[in-house]
C-alpha cells in the first residue's frame, strides 16, 4: 500500500514539474522570426541593388549567400544552436537552417578526421534535402516537359 501511495505522489510531482509545451508561443515565435528574416532578405536585396547597381536576380543570389555566410559563422561560433532552440522552425526552414545543418554536422564529426569525419558527414542532414529535392524536381520536371512536348505542341 505504501509503495502505491509513493508512486502516485511521484507521478503527481512529475506531472506538475513537466515543462509545459506552450505550442501557441512556439508557433508565434516561429512566425515572427521567419517573418523578420523575410523582411531582412527583401531589405538586403534592395540594399545590394542600390549600392552595387546590379540586377534583382544577382542581388537575390548575393542575399542568399549573405544568409548562408552568417548562419555558418554563427553556428561555428557556437551560439546559433541556442537561437535555434528558441526560434525552432523560424530559423530551420529558411536557408539558414540548411547552412546550419551542414556546419554543425562538420564540426560535430571533426574529431574523426578530415575524410571520414568532415567530408562524409557534412551532408548528413542537408543530404536528404538535396536528394529528395532532386528526385522530386526531376519527376515533376519530366511531367511538365512531357506535358509541353506532347500536348501543347
Amino acid at each position: 500500500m505504501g509503495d502505491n501511495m509513493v508512486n502516485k505522489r511521484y507521478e503527481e510531482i512529475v506531472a506538475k514539474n513537466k515543462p509545459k509545451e506552450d505550442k501557441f508561443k512556439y508557433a508565434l515565435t516561429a512566425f515572427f522570426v521567419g517573418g523578420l528574416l523575410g523582411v531582412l532578405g527583401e531589405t538586403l536585396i534592395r540594399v545590394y541593388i542600390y549600392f552595387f547597381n546590379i540586377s534583382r536576380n544577382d542581388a537575390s543570389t548575393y542575399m542568399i549567400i549573405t544568409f548562408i555566410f552568417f548562419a555558418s559563422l554563427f553556428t561555428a561560433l557556437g551560439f546559433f544552436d541556442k537561437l535555434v532552440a528558441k526560434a525552432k522552425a523560424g530559423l530551420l526552414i529558411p536557408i539558414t537552417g540548411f547552412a546550419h545543418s551542414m556546419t554543425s554536422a562538420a564540426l560535430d564529426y571533426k574529431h574523426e578526421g578530415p575524410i571520414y569525419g568532415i567530408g562524409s558527414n557534412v551532408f548528413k542532414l542537408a543530404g536528404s534535402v538535396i536528394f529528395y529535392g532532386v528526385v522530386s524536381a526531376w519527376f515533376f520536371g519530366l511531367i511538365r516537359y512531357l506535358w509541353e512536348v506532347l500536348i501543347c505542341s
Partner: protein
Amino acid sequence: MYFLNSFLFCGLICLIAELILDNTKLTPGHITSLFVVIGAALDSFGIYDYFISKVGGGALLPITSFGHSLIHGALLAAESHGFIGLLMGMFDLTATGITAAIIFTFVFTLIFKAKD
C-alpha cells in the same frame, strides 16, 4: 508591399512548419525534405514563380525556394537541350547556394571547434 508580403509569406511557412513540428512526430529533417518537394511541385505549374513576383525576398528564403530553383534550372535547360536538359540544368540555379555553403563550412570547420 514587398516588405509586408515578405514578412507574411516567410512567417507563414515557418508557422506551418512549427505547427507540424509540435503536433506530429516528424523531425526538422522530415519537414525540410517535405517542403523542398512541395516547392518543386508548386513550381512545376508556375505557382511559385507567381509567389516570387508578388513577395520578393521573402519567397526566396524558405527551403521551398530550393526545390523551386532545382526544377526551374532543369526546365530552362530542357528548353534549349531537350530531354537531357532535365539532367544538365538541375543544379544551375542552386549551385551558388550549395557551393557557398560547402566553402564556408570548410573554412569555418578548419578554424573553429565544436562547443560543448
